[in-house]
């Protein structure tokens, strides 16, 4: 899945957002817009754009030509790289954080890597960043924000202290960081899954949309991207159901819909429960229709074994590597793609399915990790050789 699975994260996020909203009252101008046609069109274009950089290293590719001059931040090694992390509280973040720690090992110039885990709390992350700044040891600060609005002032404070800041995954609403590393985005994810469904079900087909939770930007944009496309193509959306990322609930929901009639496709905003959705068809003895997923191993293997029409859009976890690479380039004073470093966001399709399957990896290992070329692969990710 993307970066927020656990309910409590989201609850905290919503609470924090609500509290923030109350404090700022009507002045809260950053009203979230999860259905922005301009952003939708931009991401749709980026999905098929050509990216700069080496073709076999997607984690250093970037869209566009805009670069940021970092010569002011050039510093002699050894460096202390500080990382304020929103949390390591779902499988996607576990894989991503492993990518990151292994990438750190590839750079001898990094003397110390300091990681502070905010455990999904905005307050803790704000305090963490304060502590890192007060410590005065950081050469660079990498931030993976827990939520956009709440962390913006903390990031601004770090910039004001003269530190180079790299933000990745979720963004902040300030352009003071050196760069913001992220893949194409949520609309792109929704578009890839929806296009596949539209191409594979007959006109007027019935689509069940399964979502984790409402109200999270990266997930809302996936859903609104897909919804727009289904409408355009004249497909019927049977319903939008929230699964809380729970396998048992997902299975029950699909079973209930199956009892009421046929389903031509299941669209999912994240893949963690895709296998449970597939099993619901399997256990009823019904042919598995189009079920979209994500790049985790259990889904990819199920897709291959049962041979249904799957697709795995990705929210690549290799961006965690890119964040370290951006920090290293900054401290070397080399130009860095910015102010936004947009990474490619490929979908795994039938043609390339086999090259992403590795049965030696754990079931929720995210295949689009860009980590296969690292010396510690696969053991560091929980795999066996």
């Amino acid at each position, binding site marked *: 899945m993307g970066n927020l699975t*656990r309910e409590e994260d989201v609850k905290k996020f919503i609470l924090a957002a609500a509290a923030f909203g109350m404090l700022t009252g009507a002045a809260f101008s950053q009203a979230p817009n999860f259905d922005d046609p301009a952003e939708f069109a931009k991401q749709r274009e980026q999905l098929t754009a050509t990216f700069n950089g080496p073709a076999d290293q997607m984690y250093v590719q970037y869209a566009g030509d805009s670069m940021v001059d970092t010569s002011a931040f050039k510093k002699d090694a050894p460096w202390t790289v500080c990382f304020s992390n929103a949390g390591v509280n779902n499988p996607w973040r576990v894989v991503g954080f492993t990518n990151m720690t292994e990438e750190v090992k590839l750079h001898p110039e990094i003397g110390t890597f300091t990681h502070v885990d905010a455990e999904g709390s905005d307050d803790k992350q704000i305090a963490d960043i304060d502590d890192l700044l007060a410590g005065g040891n950081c050469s660079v600060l990498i931030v993976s924000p827990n939520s956009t609005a709440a962390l913006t002032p903390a990031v601004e404070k770090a910039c004001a202290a003269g530190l180079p800041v790299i933000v990745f995954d979720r963004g902040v609403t300030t352009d003071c960081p050196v760069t913001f590393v992220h893949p194409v985005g949520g609309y792109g994810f929704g578009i890839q899954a929806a296009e596949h469904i539209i191409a594979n079900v007959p006109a007027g087909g019935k689509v069940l949309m399964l979502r984790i939770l409402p109200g999270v930007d990266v997930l809302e944009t996936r859903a609104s991207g897909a919804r727009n496309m289904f409408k355009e193509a004249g497909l019927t959306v049977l*319903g939008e159901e929230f699964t809380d990322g729970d396998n048992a609930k997902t299975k029950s929901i699909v079973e209930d819909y199956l*009892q*009421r009639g046929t389903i031509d496709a299941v669209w999912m905003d994240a893949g963690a429960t895709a296998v449970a959705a597939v099993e619901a068809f399997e*256990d009823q003895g019904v042919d598995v229709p189009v079920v979209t997923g994500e790049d985790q191993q259990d889904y990819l293997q199920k897709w291959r074994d049962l041979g249904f029409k799957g697709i795995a859009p990705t929210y690549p976890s290799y961006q965690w590597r890119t964040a370290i690479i951006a920090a290293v380039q900054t401290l070397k004073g080399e130009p860095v793609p910015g102010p936004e470093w947009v990474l490619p966001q490929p979908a795994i399709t039938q043609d390339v399915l086999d090259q992403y399957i590795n049965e030696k990896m*754990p*079931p929720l290992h995210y295949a689009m990790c860009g980590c296969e070329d690292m010396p510690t692969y696969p053991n560091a990710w929980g795999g066996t050789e």
Partner: protein
Amino acid sequence: MSAQSLPQPAATKRSLPKINPVYVLVVALILAIIVMNPAFGEPTGYMNFLKRVTALAILSAGALYVIVSGGFDLSVGSIMTLTVIGSSMLASNDPNSTYWIIPLMLGIGAVIGLINGLVVSYLKVPSLIATLGMMITLNGVAFMWSGGAPRGYLPDTFRFFGRYNITDVPVITLLPIAVICLVVFGVILWWGMHRTNFGRMLHAVGDNQQAARLAGVPVERVRISAFVVSALTAVLAGVILGGRAGVSVDIGSGFELQAITAAVIGGAQLLGGRGSVPATISGALALEAIFTLLNLLGLAQPVRLVVQGLILIGAVALATYQRKRSGR
């Protein structure tokens, strides 16, 4: 003291035999579901439903032991999580591992229940706090063990109990293994609660601890046993739920409250001394039926939550009102 007042309808001359309202509720909900969706009356419909409810039903019936003894067990959800995570870690895809993993997990469950019971009985920590602490600890253990993401699958032999159906059965066409488990464990738990001396002592302890002690009931031992039963059923529920749905890192979260809710809908008294296993299992059926029915009505999720909450409050209020009137 209610050691004598087992949940049998009081046969007074003036009123009809009282039926626990939970049975009426379940029948009404199921009829409503069948009206909405005739396919539910087919074996695949109702068998799927029973299969789905099995984990919660067994869990609630076990949790009832602690509730009747006058305590709460908030650790059951985390025991389910630990069972599923632990089993997937240990199994490493070996189908033969199931035969030692399930007994091992039951052993771990028994130890957890024992610790809960000892802490409550001898350290005098209120059960709400003791088991809350256990819940947090076990969630931490499961997280550490897995490193935050599942590292293995559950083999098909393990998933057999929660997932597989016996097909070609006469009359009912198919019979899920989970439903067999529900009946077997339901009967065992019913027998333990309502047909043994232990069950009577459990009621006595929950109703009035001092009186029970004076009457010679080994209060501590009875309490500890209740926590062990609850923990063991949580392991069984974990095996069945993991079998049905596969591995996730927080598979059991929320089940502790659902189990308590099911018991209360079934008329159990939260401070102990009163509760029935069949009614609790019906409470679990009612909870799941509410969810299914609201789903069938096609209401939007927020509306569904509101209705679900109101039905819960209504059901418990009705049960309490009836009890008050009947003076039991």
